[in-house]
C-alpha cells in the first residue's frame, strides 16, 4: 500500500489513477496512522515551496515523513514534492525543506540563460547512475516536466539529468528517499514504468 500524502496541493487524481492503472494499491491521506501503515510514501505537489512546506507543517506531516524516512520506508517526491525533500529553497525567500536529500532548490532563470520559463514539456532522461527506479525504462526516454526551480545536489545523488540550456536534475536519490522533478503520472508509459519500479522497491 502506497500512501499519497494529501496536504491540499496538486493533482492527486491523476497520480492515484496511474497507480490504479498499473494495479498498485494506494490511498490518498493526511492521516498519520494510515501513513504509518503504508509500506511506501509518495509526496506530490505543485505550486510554491513556501505554501507547501507550511501546509505540511500545519498538518504535522513534516515530522511524520521524516520519521518514516528514518525507518527506511521508501519515499518518492514528485515535482514540488521532490523539492520539499531538499535542505533549503530560494523560491520567494529562503525556506527550510525536509532535509532528506542534501541540496538546494534554485531558480532556473539563473542557469538557463534566455530559455523560456517554466521548463514545460517532454524532455529526455540522461542516466547518471543505476537506479532501481529505472528497471523498466531506458536512457533517452522522454518524460514530462513543468517547473521554474531546480534541485542542485551532489552528482552522486543525481540518478538522471535532463538538458535545458544546462544539465538539470531530473531525478535524484539518497538512501531510501527518491525524487523526480518530472511528473511520472503524466509521462505516458515511461512514467508508469517508473511508478511500477518504485512500487516494487523492498
Amino acid at each position, binding site marked *: 500500500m502506497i500512501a499519497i500524502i494529501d496536504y491540499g496541493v496538486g*493533482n492527486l*487524481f*491523476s497520480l492515484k*489513477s*496511474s497507480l*490504479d*492503472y498499473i494495479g498498485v494499491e494506494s490511498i490518498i491521506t493526511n492521516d498519520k496512522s494510515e501513513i504509518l501503515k503504508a509500506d511506501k510514501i509518495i509526496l506530490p505537489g*505543485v*505550486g*510554491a515551496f513556501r505554501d507547501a512546506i507550511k501546509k505540511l507543517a500545519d498538518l504535522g506531516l513534516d515530522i511524520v515523513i521524516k520519521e518514516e524516512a528514518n525507518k527506511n520506508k521508501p519515499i518518492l517526491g514528485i515535482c514540488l514534492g521532490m523539492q520539499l525533500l531538499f535542505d533549503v529553497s530560494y523560491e520567494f525567500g529562503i525556506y527550510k525543506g525536509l532535509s532528506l536529500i542534501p541540496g538546494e532548490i534554485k531558480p532556473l532563470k539563473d542557469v538557463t540563460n*534566455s530559455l*523560456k*520559463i*517554466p*521548463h*514545460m*514539456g*517532454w*524532455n*529526455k532522461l540522461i542516466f547518471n547512475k543505476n537506479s532501481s527506479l529505472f528497471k523498466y525504462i531506458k536512457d533517452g526516454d*522522454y518524460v*514530462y*516536466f*513543468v*517547473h*521554474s526551480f531546480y534541485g542542485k545536489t551532489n552528482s552522486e545523488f543525481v540518478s538522471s539529468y535532463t*538538458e*535545458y540550456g544546462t544539465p538539470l536534475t531530473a531525478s535524484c536519490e539518497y538512501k531510501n528517499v527518491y525524487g523526480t522533478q518530472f511528473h511520472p*503520472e*503524466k*509521462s*505516458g508509459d515511461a*512514467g*508508469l514504468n517508473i511508478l511500477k519500479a518504485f512500487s516494487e522497491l523492498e
Partner: protein
Amino acid sequence: MITKRIIPCLDVKNGRVVKGKNFTGLADVDSPVKLAEYYSTNNADELVFYDITASSEERKIFTNILKETAKKVFIPLTVGGGIEKVEDFDRVLKCGADKVSVNSGAIKNKNLIKEASRIYGSQCVVLSVDVKRVDGKFKVFSKGGRENTDMDAIEWIKTCVNDGAGEVVVNSIDTDGVKKGFDIELLKLVNAAVNVPVIASGGAGSIEDFINLYKEIPTIDASLAASIFHYKEISINDLKLRLKSENISVRI
C-alpha cells in the same frame, strides 16, 4: 533538448466529440474517452478538451467524461470552455485536468488569471486568445471569435502573462479553417513578446505547415490542431517522423 509538442484538441459537446465523425479505426468514433486513449498511445504530447456546452446539466456530463479520461490517459490534459471563475478551475482540476485554459472568462473578469495563478500556480493557467486582423491591427476577439473587443492582442497577451498565465495558445481567426498554414506573422510577434511557452493554433492543413512553423519560429513550443488529426488527414506519427527528419526535436 525539450521537444516540440503536438497537441490534438477535442471539442466536446453533450458527451461526444464534435468533428470526430469521420475518424476511422475506432469502434466508437466520437467517444472522447476512446479518442483520448487513441491519441495518448499514438504519440500525442498533450490533449486539450474543449467544453462547448451551455447548460449545467451538460457540464456535469463533461466533467464525468473528464474523470473517465483521466483514469486512462497519462499525458497532460488541458481543459477549456466556460471557465469564468476560480470555482471553474477547481471543478475541472478535481476531475483530473492538469491545466485550465481561459479565454472570454479572462476578458470578462480581469482578476481571474491573477487569482487562479496565485492559488494553483502559473503552470496551471493557460491563456487562450482568439486574434483577428482589423484594419491591419491584431485585435482580441471574444465569445468564440464573434465579438471584437478592440483590445490590442499583443498588449493583452503581455498583461495576462504578467498576471500569471504560464502558457499562451494563439488562435488566429484569419488562418483558422483555411488550411494554408499557421499565422506566422502573428505568432512571431507573440513569441517575441513573452517568455512563457507559446502554442500555435489555426491553419494547419499539411505536414509542411508544421515544418514551416518550427523552421520560421524555432523557439515556438507547440502546435495545436483538431480536424486534420480527427479526420486522419495527418497521423501524429507520420508528422513527428517528418519533423524529426527535418531536425526538429520531437518525442517519438
